[in-house]
């Protein structure tokens, strides 16, 4: 495989605050420095871009010293918090703006989709806009004409093709716009979060088209999204940006583990000290963790594989009746289910001695839906009800769906609904 994108020492400085007043003075200062062959005075004082902290200067580095290479046929996800530099990177790659230092070298044509429907004119019909948009994206007229039927067919708005697009629903608008972009013949496709719109059927089409583009046609795809599920399905490797710096570039599941654990303090294993352990004078939780089938701590689990959740807790008084439980929430905070122990010897509320106990819950594969699952370990007494210890959302893991076709989603590549994703057996016969 050959390198098709080579990024070297790429940096981009931005000016904060209002541009307008006072800029003539600073422009002249920069100009004067340039004449004397000195370094640009405004670039020296730049600092790392962290939007949450107040800085000293009003120049920040949107991107700083990026170096990476992308090989042909790779589908690479770009992940990072808001303001980490994802869009800036895409803008430079699609030549919308220039870097402040460094360079990017590219083999082949780049089609960038930073927005769908760029240059659509509301007064023009779908047909006219299709030609215009295609030309803006770099297609020749003959090329559009040749693919016209295919594009209209893909968009599914054939009936409205001669109606001005200002009469379109926003969904139809996006459909037409993405259809044009999907048919570009470029070697590299750069996509910003444009798939957030459109209905489920169309999202499926878009993701399907993109995976077809990268896997089937050997074209290179760069994809920015906050939808971790979509990124894991589509991209084999990913770039993690943090405050304009390249934090990591690795296989997607490792990057997502890294990103989620840093950004939301999620962790697959947690141990508490005596002071901060959740609990009361009856019991306190010592540790909790998520393990894969090989009994290794793991925060990134294949949807088809079982997962083991363990906890250790300490009972502080003799002769108490209690049991242990886990509460499961998904990434949207929706409570999925609770599970407490009703089958070990502790279920009958037999009296416990002081000391340390373990509890282990096995959840089979093909049960959780993809995405982040947050787990709260608890120690309870059922009757009369009392909550002794509760580690709210203290551990979490990420479920990754597969595109191999043997999970519940089968061949479907779009956003698959539902809060759980069980794999059931179907029976079906031909009866007439």
């Amino acid at each position, binding site marked *: 495989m050959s390198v098709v994108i080579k990024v070297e020492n790429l940096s981009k400085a931005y000016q904060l605050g209002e541009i307008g007043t006072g800029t003539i003075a600073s422009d002249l200062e920069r100009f004067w420095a340039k004449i004397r062959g000195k370094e640009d005075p405004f670039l020296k004082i730049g600092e790392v871009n962290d939007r949450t902290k107040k800085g000293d200067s009003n120049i920040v580095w949107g991107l700083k010293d990026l170096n990476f290479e992308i090989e042909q046929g790779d589908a690479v996800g770009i992940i990072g918090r808001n303001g980490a530099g994802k869009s800036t990177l895409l803008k430079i790659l699609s030549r919308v703006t220039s870097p402040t230092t460094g360079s990017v070298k590219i083999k082949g044509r780049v089609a960038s989709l930073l927005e769908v429907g760029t240059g659509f004119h509301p*007064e023009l019909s779908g047909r006219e806009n299709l030609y215009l948009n295609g030309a803006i994206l770099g297609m020749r007229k003959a090329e559009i004409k040749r693919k016209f039927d295919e594009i209209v067919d893909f968009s599914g708005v054939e009936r409205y093709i001669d109606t001005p697009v200002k009469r379109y629903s926003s969904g139809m608008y996006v459909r037409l716009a993405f259809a044009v972009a999907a048919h570009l013949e470029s070697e590299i496709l750069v996509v910003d979060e444009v798939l957030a719109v459109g209905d489920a059927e169309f999202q499926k089409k878009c993701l399907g088209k993109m995976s077809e583009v990268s896997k089937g046609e050997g074209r290179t795809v760069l994809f920015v999204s906050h939808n971790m599920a979509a990124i894991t399905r589509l991209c084999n490797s990913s770039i993690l940006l943090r405050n304009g710096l390249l934090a990591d570039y690795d296989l997607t599941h490792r990057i997502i583990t890294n990103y989620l654990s840093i950004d939301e303090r999620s962790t697959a294993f947690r141990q508490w000290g005596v002071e901060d352990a959740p609990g009361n004078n009856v019991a306190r939780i010592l540790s909790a963790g998520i393990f894969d089938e090989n009994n290794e701590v793991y925060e990134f689990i294949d949807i088809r594989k079982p997962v083991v959740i363990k906890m250790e807790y300490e009972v502080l008084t003799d002769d108490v009746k209690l049991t242990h439980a886990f509460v499961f929430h998904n990434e949207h905070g929706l409570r999925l289910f609770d599970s407490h122990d009703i089958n070990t010897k502790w279920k009958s509320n037999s009296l416990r001695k002081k000391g340390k106990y373990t509890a282990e819950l096995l959840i089979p594969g093909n049960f959780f839906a993809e995405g982040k699952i947050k787990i709260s370990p608890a120690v309870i007494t059922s009757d009369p009800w009392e909550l002794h210890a509760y580690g709210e959302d203290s551990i979490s893991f990420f479920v990754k769906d597969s595109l191999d076709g043997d999970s519940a989603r089968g061949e479907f590549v779009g956003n698959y609904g539902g809060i759980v994703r069980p794999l059931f057996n179907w029976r079906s016969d031909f009866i007439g």
Partner: protein
Amino acid sequence: MNNLADENWDIEITVSSNPFDLKLKDVWHYRDLLVLLVRRDFVAYYKQTILGPVWFFVQPLFTTIIYTFVFGNLASIPTDGLPQPLFYLAGITAWNYFADCLTKTSTVFTANAGLFGKVYFPRLIVPLSIIVSNLIRFGIQMSLFIVMMIVYLTRGASFHPNIYLLLFPFLLILMGMLGLGLGMIISAMTTKYRDLNFLITFGIQLMMYLTTVIYPLSVVKSKYPGYAWLVAYNPMTSIIEAFRYGFLGQGTFTMLSLSITTAITTIILLIGILIFNRVERTFIDTV
């Protein structure tokens, strides 16, 4: 480390590039876009109107009537002995072409920020499409002027189209270049300093009065010889004077003044290209 085959890059994105490189190869590749943008301008212009393309005639026609009334009759400014409506229409048609090129290109960056911020194509395509669509509009308005000429000729008015008519295509190019050059300079500067937006709207009005649209250069020269240079050195003056001379046989221009105009226009266009190229690369960060 790398072998030679690996060094054949199609696109290199770097900090600086040749300031006079117009990327004409790229522009040529996007020529269909130019045509489609021109088409969009026209279709969008008269969508949901009843009169449609007729509106292209209304503006020069009514302006001519008003000018004839105000400047011709009320103020009695002489018109080199030409029929007044014909004199004004010639000036208005030519001036409109220049002024439209200038005002439209002067907002290229600010008006298209949304588009430029999302997709790459040679930015020069947009000002070029403005020049072309104004050229077509100019062509339509010229037909009005030609019809007027024929009407006056058949009614026995005395004016004499002559060999200098051959300068017409050249004058057209000059006006386009001048409008494009000035427009690009202004558009590049407005990305940072919006003050120029205010300047341009009344600046064009004022500049029209310093150009021989509503009066001939001969009148200024005889009445205010001390200030005539102000009008005479305005590059648009010699273009309009030459335009009138070719079509109507009256006008004050010399080959020298036209050469000076050509030189000034070329310099302005070069400066325009230089600034435009510089700004095009990063304007999206400041616009």
